[in-house]
């Protein structure tokens, strides 16, 4: 009971130095880093976790009175949406500019990427050799008929991938690509990224489109069956000979209504620092924002790769178009 | 104005059905009158009572109680502000309260304590005061409900089918008790009943309601002898409704809406066998016996005269058989 009152009071007043975060992330790495930050600075951190979309709607609804200082999401598309919705503000910070490559932050400094995930091809060690694989576009080839596993197009990662393909190839080609992929699917899309790896391991599909992050989860799952899945598959980074593998960032921006802007900036700078970046990689199987500086054992085992340098704002800008193309292609 | 209650042109319809509706009902009620509203179920008699109590709002019409307009198109006095109380068909005793709590529940009931004590004494429920409604008999519940209704000293007492919940034997006893009690407190009573016999016993005026319309309002004896419609005539049991044209020697006649002609009502026992009383002046009626049934002390015979089928009650049927020809006359002026 007391705690609830306390929460209410905290929301209403701002006596102690503190920042309020709306976060889509639910990771142990974040808990560790939040605590570390509070220990170092004495600034308390309050969090509401929820899906980024709903948090954005909530921010819009709260308008200038929102108590939130930071919006933390797991993809750039939504950050772009938040920027367009006018709930973020530009940040002036040398440290952030230095720590974060230009394609991974907003061109007007409304938001900043903090960790990276790559959307890769995961294939069966038994049935596929790496030389059969090349690009995302190649998956549309007839030879993959009934062999591809990928999740629903309602998922933001697929929408972002589609957005990058629209940016690179144009809407018309993107649509025919999506149509072909739908035809080549081993089954109607369902489940999470991990379930795609499971389908490959089970022999239902030969190649899955999924995020590196989820492979890390499988590799370190408490469930032996999951670790078995991980052993049966391997990672391929597509499009190494052209634009590079599609990546997405988990990132954050400072809200327009922020009442603790200074502390909030300090916090983002803290997260972009090399210590924090190491924590993300080791606890959460995410690439650091400077991918080359990656130190996680698992991620290193997949080797270095070339990534798509497309400015990630484009993912947000193309998102609605991507969803419409999915609808037209019949990719559920 | 000398009337205690004046009901003027009350109409009420319900959204979904025509049953229980009222149409242009008007009547008056003097102080210490006991008026009984009689009608079949669905005739609207309970609705009338509830409108007077304030539990329903009529579409049209006026009600005046003790010179106060309690209902009109502009006025609606809510039930708790009307000085009348209602005894419900199912008594509506509060199951969560003892008999005493029930009786003293009414507003200002505690101010009338001596009067209530006397009523409790009179109705012999003193030893039940600490019991709960489900622990006492139907007749006792009836008395508690009555005392409770009288506890607020109403100027008008409304009774909704006061005897319908009781079995036959108890009914006669309670009926007498009720008459006594009403006389004792000098209450003005408006009661509703589907049983004409109860009404005849207790009321000094009877109001017949038929499909929401007042058919007749009169003294009990007149209602029986001089019915104003076939409906009223039938309320008192089996009767033969015959065209006035063929029986013009019978004085009391009335108009039948369904047949669209003037008719007379002849009760089965008003027929006599011709040979038993040759002094009668009424013409002879001849007919063939269709069926004979023994019903207790008399026989019920169905006779076909060629023009009508007559229902006849006769004490002795020594030699009569089915298909016999009979000669009858009507013993009535």
């Amino acid at each position, binding site marked *: 009971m007391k705690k609830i009152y306390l929460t*209410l009071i905290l929301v209403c007043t701002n006596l102690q130095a503190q920042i309020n975060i709306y976060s889509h992330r639910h990771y142990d790495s974040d808990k560790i880093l939040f605590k570390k930050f509070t220990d170092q600075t004495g600034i308390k951190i309050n969090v*509401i976790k929820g899906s980024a979309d709903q948090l954005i709607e909530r921010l819009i609804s709260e308008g200038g009175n929102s108590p939130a200082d930071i919006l933390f999401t797991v993809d750039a598309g939504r950050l772009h949406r938040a920027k367009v919705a006018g709930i973020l503000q530009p940040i002036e910070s040398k440290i952030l500019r230095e720590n974060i490559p230009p394609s991974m932050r907003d061109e007007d400094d409304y938001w900043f990427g903090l960790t990276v995930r790559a959307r890769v091809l995961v294939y069966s060690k038994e049935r596929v050799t790496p030389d059969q694989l090349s690009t995302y576009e190649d998956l549309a080839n007839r030879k993959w008929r009934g062999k591809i596993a990928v999740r629903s197009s309602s998922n933001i990662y697929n929408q972002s991938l589609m957005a990058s393909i629209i940016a690179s190839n144009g809407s018309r080609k993107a649509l025919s690509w999506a149509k072909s992929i739908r035809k080549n699917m081993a089954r109607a899309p369902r489940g999470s990224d991990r379930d795609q790896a499971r389908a490959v391991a089970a022999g239902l599909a030969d190649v899955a489109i999924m995020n590196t992050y989820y492979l890390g989860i499988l590799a370190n799952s408490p469930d032996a069956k999951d670790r078995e899945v991980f052993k049966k598959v391997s990672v391929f980074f597509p499009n190494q000979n052209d634009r590079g593998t599609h990546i997405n960032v988990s990132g954050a921006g400072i809200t327009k209504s922020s009442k603790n802007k200074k502390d909030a900036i300090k916090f983002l700078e803290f997260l972009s620092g090399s210590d924090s970046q190491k924590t993300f990689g080791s606890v959460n199987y995410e690439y650091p924002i400077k991918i080359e500086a990656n130190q996680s054992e698992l991620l290193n085992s997949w080797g270095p790769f070339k990534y798509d340098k497309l400015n990630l704002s484009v993912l947000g800008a193309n998102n609605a178009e991507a969803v419409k193309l999915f609808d037209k292609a019949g990719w559920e | 104005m000398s009337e205690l209650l004046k009901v003027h042109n009350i109409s009420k319809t319900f959204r979904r059905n025509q049953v229980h509706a009222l149409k242009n009902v008007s009547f008056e009620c003097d102080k210490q009158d006991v008026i009984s509203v009689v009608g079949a179920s669905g005739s609207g008699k309970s609705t009338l009572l509830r409108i007077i109590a304030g539990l329903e709002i009529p579409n049209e019409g006026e009600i005046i109680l003790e010179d106060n307009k309690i209902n009109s198109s502009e006025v609606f006095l809510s039930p708790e502000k009307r000085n009348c109380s209602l005894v*419900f068909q199912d008594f509506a005793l509060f199951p969560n309260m003892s008999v005493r709590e029930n009786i003293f529940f009414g507003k200002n009931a505690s101010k009338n304590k001596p009067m209530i004590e006397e009523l409790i004494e009179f109705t012999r429920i003193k030893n039940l005061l600490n019991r709960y409604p489900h622990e006492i008999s139907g007749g006792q519940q009836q008395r508690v409900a009555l005392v409770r209704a009288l506890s607020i000293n109403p100027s008008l007492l409304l009774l909704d089918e006061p005897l319908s919940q009781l079995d036959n034997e108890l009914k006669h006893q309670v009926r007498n008790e009720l008459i006594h009690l009403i006389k004792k407190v000098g209450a003005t009573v408006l009661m509703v009943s589907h049983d004409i016999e109860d009404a005849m016993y207790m009321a000094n005026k009877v109001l017949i309601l038929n499909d929401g319309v007042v058919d007749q309002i009169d003294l009990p004896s007149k209602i029986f002898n001089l019915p104003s419609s076939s409906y009223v005539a039938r309320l008192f049991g089996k009767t033969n409704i015959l065209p006035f044209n063929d029986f013009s020697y019978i004085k009391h006649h009335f108009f039948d809406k369904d047949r669209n002609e003037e008719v007379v009502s002849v009760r089965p026992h008003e027929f006599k066998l011709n040979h038993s009383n040759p002094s009668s002046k009424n013409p002879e009626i001849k007919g063939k016996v269709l069926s004979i049934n023994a019903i207790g002390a008399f026989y019920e015979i169905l006779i076909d005269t060629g023009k009508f089928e007559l229902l006849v009650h006769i004490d002795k049927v020594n030699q009569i058989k089915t298909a016999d020809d009979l000669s009858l006359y009507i013993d009535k002026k």
Partner: protein
Amino acid sequence: MDISALKSQKPLQILRQELLFKLNGWTILSLIVGLIIFFPIGEVLLSINSQSENWSHLKETVLLSYLLNTIILVVGTAFFSLIFGVLPAWIISNYQFKFRKILEWILVLPLAIPTYISAYAYFDVLELFNPLLIWVRNNINNDLMQFINNVLVYMVTILVMSSVLYPYIYLLARSAFVNQGAKLRDAASTLGYGEKSIFWKIALPMARPALIAGVSLVVMETLNDYGAVKHFGVPTFTSGIFRTWLGMGDLVGALQLSAVLIIFIFALLLIEKQIRSRSKYHDTLHSKPNSKKMVFGKKGSLAAIICCLIPLILGFVVPVIRLISWAWISRNKAGTIISMEMVSNSLLLSLISSVSIVSIAVLLAFTARYFKSSIINLSNRLATLGYSIPGAVIAIGILLIVAQINAWLNIALTGSLFLLIFAFIVRYLTVAWQPINAAIETNCDSLNHASKTLGSSAYTSLTSVNLPLIKSTLISAGLLVFIDVVKELPLTLILRPFNFETLSTATFDLSSQAQIIESSLPALCMIGIVLIPLGYLNYRLENIK
């Protein structure tokens, strides 16, 4: 008589009487409360008029498939829930066999498990069919495999949903069968009807109103579900609403889809009401409850037990065992995952919501019945629509309204517990209102008349007649709400205050971040909490019989 001469009461006249004679503190307060509760739903409905730029796109591409998928899911779930619910209810109310008593009780247990948790517990069940699918692909062709796969997806989704939703039907069917009375059965058997024909020709048609009521609850729950359909990849209306709102960033389009869904639901409700009012004569039989039971032999007993066990195993035993085994794997994390605060948040939130919802339900039901006010009756109907509308849609409506209030009063209403509780009131008012309204109708209506004619005020009538008489209903209604709020997910997720974790949000957070195994800990806690009031309710139901 001449019926046309009777002027039937016109709406205008009713309105005039309402305004002239029935306006008082109670009705005004109830009207305001009712309208405030209806506001978020009304906001969504209003949007049907606006035109989303994407509407024609939606109509051309996905609308039809959303509709079809939703219908398949709803019909399938209703069908299996009927089988899972009616058969055990019939056996248990008519036969005597070993373990009958305990089965009668435990058959309601799946009510403790939200559909999204059951779906997690079955997350990999489809993988069992992989060998079959692969065989079909390799030996027949890919198209057939795709077809089989689709059928399997729907079957599993439908079975998972119906195995946790059937108790709604089971409970209502059981009491319908028991109340049908032995007389009728006896009459039927003297007419030469066997057991089978008694069931099909008499018992089942007579129980129809109860079954339809149960099915409509199942349908509402199916439409409300977002987690399970998302998990199994069945694109329904509810998931389409999210996709349009969030994926296309088109709130208007999402609202329009919601409005279509709401109209679809209202059409179903209307049909239900029609059917139910036509079969009202069923209720007029006042024969004694059927207490005589036929005794099964050994074989019969075994068959009966199996019949009852199948839905129970699917809906409760398997998911719970699964969760327990996962909880065992992650037991050393229990301390960090579950906190006392989380548990007390869940309990307190549910408790406060139950009390407020029951109080409001009493106010609204009592006022409408006591003053016979058609206006309040109407506003009550509007205020109790929330249960038939997916929680996520209600959340959109609330956010829209709050945005206006925020801008207007210059405050931030979101993030306060007050708003969250208001959202629960919008969604769950019916759960309390239905039984309370029915209890006042059967127990208090005529007594209120007596109370009025004895000169007491509405307040006195409420406190000394109505409340004491419906006490037990108030408790059951409160517990029903409590169970629903503990399990509730979408509203809590969107509207909760800072640092506010409940058992359901923790379960969702963990499972949505690929930690399904760890999510078993808060999920089990939640199921445990729900089991207590559920057990009590069931015990009371038995005793009423």
